[in-house]
């Protein structure tokens, strides 16, 4: 019965919020839409260039290293560790949002702390990977890798790789800063006084978006 009433609710007839979320949260969604199109434009231009090339480097060959182990026979192990870290920090972020619903300040702080740690761990991994690739001679405008068929590769590969993972890494970095600010605000009882932890949810949306983008970056650069 209650459900049927819900369905008949006239959301657009005035007097209520048609999206049934707080203004800031809706605006965060719209911001993320615009950001999604920015990332989309980057990735699709990468795809267009790749489709217009006769050959391309093999990711299994390029990304085959792991810290301390040198070149392994298991390519992609390091990047799967990075993926795992990011998914894991997404989980702790949701748990922080959940603790916010329960107005449990200590738990919110604990999970925000874990999320920040995850973000920093991811950034460290990326810093290592960039350093390693740089030592191998890869950078913007420089590409030491050959195509999968042994032909000469252009610098498109490294240019796109560093630009897109760099742009994503910059988002992770901003996310970590935002999460640190949220942690401090929680600690200072800002949300306790407001009576709700909706800011944590908005920061959470941003953080999940960063994870979402990584899913696509991962597929486009490491699997294709």
């Amino acid at each position, binding site marked *: 019965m209650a459900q049927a009433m819900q369905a008949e609710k006239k959301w657009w007839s005035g007097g209520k919020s048609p999206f049934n979320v707080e203004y800031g949260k809706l605006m965060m969604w719209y911001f993320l839409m615009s950001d999604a199109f920015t990332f989309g434009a980057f990735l699709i231009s990468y795809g267009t260039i790749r489709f217009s090339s006769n050959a391309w480097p093999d990711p299994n060959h390029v990304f085959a290293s792991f810290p301390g182990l040198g070149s392994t026979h298991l390519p992609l192990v390091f990047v799967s560790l990075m993926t795992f870290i990011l998914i894991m920090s997404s989980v702790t972020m949701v748990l922080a949002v959940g603790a916010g619903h329960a107005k449990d300040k200590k738990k919110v702080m604990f999970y925000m702390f874990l999320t920040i740690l995850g973000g920093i761990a991811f950034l460290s991994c990326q810093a290592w990977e960039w350093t390693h690739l740089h030592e191998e001679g890869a950078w913007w405008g420089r590409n030491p890798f050959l195509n999968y068929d042994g032909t000469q590769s252009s610098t498109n590969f490294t240019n796109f790789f560093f630009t897109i993972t760099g742009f994503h890494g910059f988002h992770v970095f901003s996310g970590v800063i935002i999460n640190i600010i949220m942690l401090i605000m929680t600690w200072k009882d800002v949300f306790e006084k407001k*009576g709700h932890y909706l800011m944590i949810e908005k920061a959470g949306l941003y953080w999940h978006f960063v994870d*979402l983008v990584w899913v696509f970056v991962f597929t486009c650069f490491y699997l*294709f």
Partner: protein
Amino acid sequence: MENAHSATSHNEEHSFDTKAIWRTFWVLLAITCVELTVGMFIAPRYPHHIKIWFNVLYIFLTAAKAFYIIAEFMHLRHEIKNLIMTIAVPALLFLWFLGAFLWDGNSYKNLRNNYDRNHLEQSKQKVEEKEPGKPAQKPGALD
């Protein structure tokens, strides 16, 4: 801030489902493991022209992961239909975006190979493998 208050009280009606989050986590982890297994062990055993079919598989798996992150972690599935639509409908633009641009890239490749034979021959010339760790190209060198 009236909105904020009504939104909070609305959210409090649902108890927070920690189980669903961990289930989503395991689904994401499982899909990633499948992708990695295929990428590391299965795909390299097949000739290169088959790779496009593995790519189709990756696209489906990636879309599944994206769905779970948006629906569960970002909670969109549990919002009202109006909000879901204001996000999902504009996102459909990506279908055109992808199709049009990849088609364009492919067409450019074919035209170039057809009308610029020199480019085609050059792109078929093999380079002997250099020592790993040493740049095969000088900084700033283009194809």
